C-alpha cells in the first residue's frame, strides 16, 4: 500500500499498518517528514520533488491495493486519489479532505474521503449527546 504525505496522519497510519504486517511505501516532498515515522515502521520511503503521476509510478502503484492521500493540501489529495483510481485502478483509495464542501464534487467517484473536521465534530457532539443530560 502507498501513503502519500508523511505528516501526522500519514506517519501514524504508516506505522500502524506496517506493524500489522503490511508492505507500506510512504511518499513525501520533504525528507525531514520521514522522521515522524514511528519505530515500528519497516516499509520504504520515497522523497519526490513533485507529488504527481511519476511519483506514483516510482512507488509501484501498479502493484498497490490501497492508496491513502494524506498530504496537507486537499486538492493534491483529490488529484492523487483520482490518478490512483481512474488511471491505475487501485481497488481502495482514501483521501483526506479538510474542507467538507469539496467532498460534494467527488461523492460519485469510488474514492473514500475522510474529513477530520466532520470526524472531530461528530466525536464531540456524540460525547455531549451521549451524556444524556444536555439542557438547551
Amino acid at each position, binding site marked *: 500500500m502507498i501513503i502519500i504525505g508523511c505528516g501526522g496522519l500519514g506517519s501514524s497510519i504508516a506505522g500502524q499498518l506496517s506493524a500489522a504486517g503490511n508492505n507500506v511505501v510512504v511518499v513525501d516532498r520533504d525528507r525531514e517528514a520521514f522522521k515522524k515515522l514511528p519505530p515500528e515502521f519497516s516499509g520504504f520511503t520515497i522523497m519526490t520533488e*513533485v507529488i*504527481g*503521476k*511519476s511519483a506514483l509510478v516510482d512507488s509501484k502503484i501498479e502493484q498497490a491495493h490501497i492508496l491513502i492521500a494524506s498530504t496537507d*493540501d*486537499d*486538492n*493534491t489529495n*483529490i*488529484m*492523487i486519489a*483520482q*490518478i490512483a483510481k*481512474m*488511471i491505475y485502478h487501485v481497488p481502495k483509495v482514501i483521501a483526506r479532505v479538510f*474542507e467538507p*464542501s*469539496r467532498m*460534494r*464534487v467527488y461523492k460519485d467517484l469510488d474514492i473514500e474521503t475522510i474529513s477530520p473536521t466532520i470526524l472531530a465534530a461528530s466525536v464531540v457532539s456524540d460525547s455531549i449527546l451521549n451524556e444524556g443530560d444536555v439542557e438547551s
Partner: protein
Amino acid sequence: MKAYFLAKNLISMGYSVTMINKNKEDALQLAKIDRATVVHGDATLPEILEDAGTHTADVVVALTSSDPDNLVICQTAARLFGVRKTVAIVNDPGNVEVFKTLGIDYVVSTVRTISSLIQQSVGNETIMNLTPVEEGKVMILEVDVNTEDPISGKQLNLFEMPHEAIIGCIIREGKPIIPRGDTTVSPGDRLIILSLPQVQSATLSAIKRKVD
C-alpha cells in the same frame, strides 16, 4: 498575473469576465480593470465558485500556479455548475494526459509550449516550420531541400529514414505532390514531414546536410 492580461484581452474582445483570486492584494489589483468582476477567495471551494456566478459561465479557465488547484477548479465548475468548457494550465507536463483523462477539456502546458517555440526558433534555417499536433505527440515539420542535402536527387523508396517519420507531401514550385516510393526529391522542394518527436532530430539529420 496571467489573469490580468488575459482578462483585459477578453474584455476588449467583448466577453464578460469574472476573476477569482485568493490573494487580497492581487484581487484589488485585478478589480482596477475596466468592466471586470473580481471575487476574492479560494476558487477550489464550491461556495466561492458559486459567488462568482460560475453556473452562468460558458468557459472556466484555471490559471493558478498549483496543478491540483487547477484540476479541482475545473472539475468543480464542470460537475457542480455544469460549465461545458474547462481550460487548465499545468506546470508539470506529465499532467497534460492526466488532466485530459480526468475530464478537463483543454490542458495547456507552459513548458511544452515554450519548448516547441524554442525548437522552432533554433535552427530555423533547417526547419521552416514545426507544428506540434495532439500536445506534441506528433510533429509536422516543413523542411526545404538544398542541392547538398543527402535526400536531394534521391528516390524515396531508396532513401533511409526513421520508420516513425514519413514525408507526407512535397511542395514543388508552389504545387503540392503526394509522394510515392518512386518520387524523386529535387533541390528547392519543400518537404512536409510527419514525425514522432523522439525521431525528429534523427529524421532531420538523415535529410539535411550537417551544419557545423
